């Protein structure tokens, strides 16, 4: 399996072909279908991350040393971006997730979507992913 940065580079490549924003967004809409959806039983307030503009649900499972993320959102472009984040961060060791430098977001022009001032819940979600990683790391190290 490719490492975290290889995947990031792959995504950057994929986005390079897009001439304009609408193509990018069309692709994100497409990607939203690939999102490993959260089990409906977790789609509740315990797993919600509230942005003021869209809602995101995130679950983290631990399997053989790797963390597996599943998620959902009520907004489709948000979902597409989550799909990318999960493609990069899911099925990885806690340490990889904790240390990940997600440069692809900037590179593909989605930085604003993860700015602290955007209230779509994505930045909070990313923080939550790292927190899960820290938690699992602590739990299974100990």
């Amino acid at each position, binding site marked *: 399996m490719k490492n975290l940065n290889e995947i990031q580079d792959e995504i950057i490549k994929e986005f390079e072909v897009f001439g304009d*924003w609408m193509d990018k*967004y069309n692709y994100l809409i497409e990607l939203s279908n690939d999102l490993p959806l959260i089990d409906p039983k977790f789609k509740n307030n315990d797993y919600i991350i509230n942005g*003021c*503009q869209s809602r995101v649900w995130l679950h983290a499972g631990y399997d053989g040393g790797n963390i597996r993320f599943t998620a959902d959102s009520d907004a*489709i*472009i948000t979902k597409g971006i989550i799909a990318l984040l999960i493609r990069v961060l899911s099925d990885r060791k806690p340490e990889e997730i904790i240390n990940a430098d997600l440069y692809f977001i900037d590179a593909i022009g989605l930085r604003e979507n993860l700015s602290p001032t955007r209230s779509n819940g994505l930045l909070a979600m990313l923080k939550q992913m790292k927190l899960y990683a820290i938690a699992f790391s602590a739990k299974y190290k100990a």
Partner: protein
Amino acid sequence: MSYNVYKVREDFPILKQTVYGHPLVYLDNAATTQKPQHVIDTVNKCMSASNSSIHRGVHYLSEIITEEYENTRKKVQEFIHARHLHEIVFTSGTTSSVNGIAFSFGERYIGPGDEIIISAMEHHANIVPWQMMCQRKNAVLKVIPITDEGELVIEDIGKLITRKTRLLSITHISNVLGTINPVEKIIPIAHRHNVPVLIDAAQSVQHIPIDVEKMDCDFLVFSGHKMYGPTGIGVLYAKERWLEELPPFQGGGEMIDIVTFEKTTYNQPPLKFEAGTTNFIGAIGLGAAIDYISSLGLDGIGKHEHELLEYATGKISELGEIKIYGTSKKKSAVISFLIGNIHQLDAGMIMDKMGVAVRTGTHCAQPLMRRFGIEGNIRASFGLYNTREEIDVLCTAIQKVKEMFR
């Protein structure tokens, strides 16, 4: 002279901008408005030529700036037709004005079990300060319901008022629905029960002429930045007797008469309510905004905006699969809507990339959203510089959104 919107646009440097290669179509005027060159120049001049602390100095600059500041108070007085100059208090915005009154009114008049009435279409700025005060004073917040069209149920107001009702605080125009509330009917009902009325004019003062004397409201509040003026400046109008009776909401320099550690006596209104160094540069900028609005004339502005509203409502409805929130007969130039079951954030992001600035979300009116059973919607709000062509671009953008999320 007829209203020439293309000429008007030339007064606003920001409107010449392109966004992602598209001309900027700014339809977020209910959030904040753009500034005409006259306001920009006035603020600039203030900082370059007359800046100095107001009221307290005997030197030349202080004299000039104080005069400019007090002239602005006069402009505000004339703009809203207040009887007395000292009924105009400068604050830092609508939110501060409401909070100030909620505090002072609460301290002076509110006890356990007393009631404050607001409406189901209020902005958070006209909800939360009353909630905070009611919580402190063990008072009760009551809510006038609205119809599916987004109109206040006027008949219910008389029923909601009891002997415990101390104040009615409602918006003049809803920032989401555009509804122009019939304050000329509501205020007399309240007054018949001896209940004073606060009018949130944040969304009206830039669109329709205000006459507080005729309206007979007890308090009226609004923000500079929503009427083509600077940020950080707002107005609290209150009838003379209230300003005399109410305690100040902030303490500090300028608002005092004599200060000892044991006891402090306060200055006369309006200074009693203007603690500390006020935003005098912002106030003078607001004066320039009032001059600008007056030079165009609120009648012409209102007519132009109403035409935009009618044109936009027609065109958007024709697109199909559109649900508009707020269909009151008397409506200001705001359209809130949803496109099919497309999430408002998805729509907003696409429209943004086409240069169209609309607002998406709850518009600081969560209870209103809940009333309509939605999480949020899209809002296009028009100002004095918007054009039919911009509405055409808005419609093209909506069309594009529909295609992409079909």
